[in-house]
């Protein structure tokens, strides 16, 4: 059953008088509970593809079906609703609200989803417990380490029970040990049934996934299963 069905999408930007083809002709399908990594050098179009997948932007040409619905021509408001309910973002720079505590950061998508106070506080708390931050609920981002901030971001991504989790260089700003912990977290999320899409330029990180799609110059160069997956060293960083 596929969640994502992309057919011949292209994205062309006007930069002054020139046309920049960020994506030229990309087609791919991603099924439920897959763990996919998208790789490519700078300029390959992987950020653009990620923006498409995350419904942050719409393609210039082609069709994007998300859970069977054509989102390529949706209005801004409809896209916002999909982002809210179906997509969980995890960014390289965490992108938390700096002046709000962890709980408020995690409950924010639920506020935008119209969930009332009591229920959303419970769900946000649970999401934080699930990523192992039960004792950091009222901390602000500047009172948390890099790894903890990324966990808050993951909790936020999970809180609406989205169809996919979209992570853009999630370990880019972390040291290797903490990065490893986060990859362990993703592994567990995958095992619990989530669909995970990772965008990275690091081979080592990409090999944690089950499938790697490689982009070059706005086209899919290779799309193959990973033969020797990286298994993150097991740690007790996460609640069972």
């Amino acid at each position, binding site marked *: 059953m596929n969640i994502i069905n992309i057919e011949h999408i292209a994205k062309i930007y006007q930069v002054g008088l020139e046309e920049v083809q960020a994506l030229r002709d990309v087609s791919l399908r991603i099924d439920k509970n897959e763990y996919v990594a998208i790789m490519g050098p700078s300029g390959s179009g992987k950020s653009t593809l990620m923006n498409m997948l995350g419904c942050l932007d719409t393609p210039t040409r082609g069709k994007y079906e998300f859970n069977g619905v054509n989102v390529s021509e949706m209005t*801004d*408001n409809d896209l916002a609703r999909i982002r*809210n309910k179906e997509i969980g973002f995890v960014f390289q720079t965490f992108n938390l609200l700096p002046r709000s505590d962890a709980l408020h950061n995690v409950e924010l998508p639920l506020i935008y*989803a119209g969930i009332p106070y009591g229920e959303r506080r419970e769900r946000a708390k649970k999401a934080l417990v699930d990523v192992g931050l039960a004792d950091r609920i009222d901390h602000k981002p500047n009172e948390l380490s890099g790894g903890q901030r990324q966990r808050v971001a993951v909790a*936020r991504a999970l809180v609406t029970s989205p169809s996919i989790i979209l992570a853009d260089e999630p370990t880019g700003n972390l040291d290797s040990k903490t990065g490893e912990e986060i990859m362990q977290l993703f592994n567990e999320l995958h095992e619990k049934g989530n669909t995970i899409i990772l965008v990275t330029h690091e081979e080592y990180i990409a090999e944690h996934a089950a499938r790697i799609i490689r982009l070059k110059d706005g086209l899919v160069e290779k799309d193959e299963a990973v033969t020797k997956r990286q298994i993150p060293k097991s740690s007790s960083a996460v609640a069972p």
Partner: protein
Amino acid sequence: MRYILFEFKEGLLIAFRALRANKVRTSLTMLGIFIGITVVVLMSTAIKGIDNSFQDGISALGSDVLYVDKWAWFSNEDWWRLRNRRSIDMADYEKFKELARLPLAIAPVINARQTVKFGERRVESVFLNGSNADYVKTTNFTFDQGRFYNEVESNASRQVAVIGSEVATKLFPRGDALDKTIKIGGANFKIVGVLSEQGSFILGPFNPDNQVFIPIGTIFKNFVARHRGTITINVRAPSPAMVEETKAEAEGVMRKVRGLKHDEENDFSINQQEGLMENYNSVVGVIQIAGLFITGLSLFVGAIGIMNIMFVSVRERTKEIGIRKAIGAKRRTILTQFLLESSAICLLGGIAGLVAAILGSMALNQYFPTSIQPQAAIIAIGVSALTGILSGFAPAFTAAKLDPVDSLRYE
């Protein structure tokens, strides 16, 4: 409907969080509206206070009283021509009194200014009102102590006096004025009555509170030579409705008294409180508009300040807006949030300004009559909220239209 309320409430909470997160900037922004509202409300309470005071004072003069005088209160005529008019004397008064049928009361009045002393205390340059026992019937005076001087005392030109409440307070702080003897000019006068406060800050020396009332004969005897002064004849109409009729009769009678031929102009004027009122209203009207305009300007400047700050705030929070959009905030959610932020700033600033203005009015009341009206409060709040919405709209709209992809990339 429920969803709109939910969005509104959540938007308000998020807005307050944002304001609290940046207290310094929020307070400084609020300052503009705060000052604007304080100034506007203070100005309107002061103007209303003076207005009330003046109206009270003018009412004290009596809307049903006419003042027949050589001088005109308001006139386009040459001052010289007025000056050259023959003075009005007691003989004119006596004849007038004989002939006029309609008036409720008629009294002759002549004025002088003297220093009034009691023991160590003195009041300089007090307005003396010299008249007869009928004078009190042309006023609405009320008494704190004693009574007005009577016909016997007046006819005999006894040196008795009725003093106004301010004069009484200054000479007799313990309130024991009755039956005491004061010195007016160099002459002794016994106090037979003390007026209660008639109240009008505006009329100054013309305020009965600052006057002393003595029989007219004593003025001629001590202060003003009979032939030097001119008398004003105070005429009280039976009712305010009959003022015009009484005025017409008075004019006819006075013309006869003065021996004027039918083609000769009046050599006297009949003055009314109404003229004063009109004059005052037009002056106050102008002051009010000018005052409101100037203070409104300060409010306008405050609003511009808010718009400016909100634009800066939006620019600074571009990344935050991108994050919110990525998580699923719709355009109208962002619009609402920022609109509520600017409205909250203005509303808080407005309420603070209102409180400050009320406190200021109370403080100012010691020097100056002020009158706090509930309408001013409602208008102040309303204007603040409106300012917030209007000045916040353009920045909020800019925020709502930001592209999430670009915003996320903003450093």
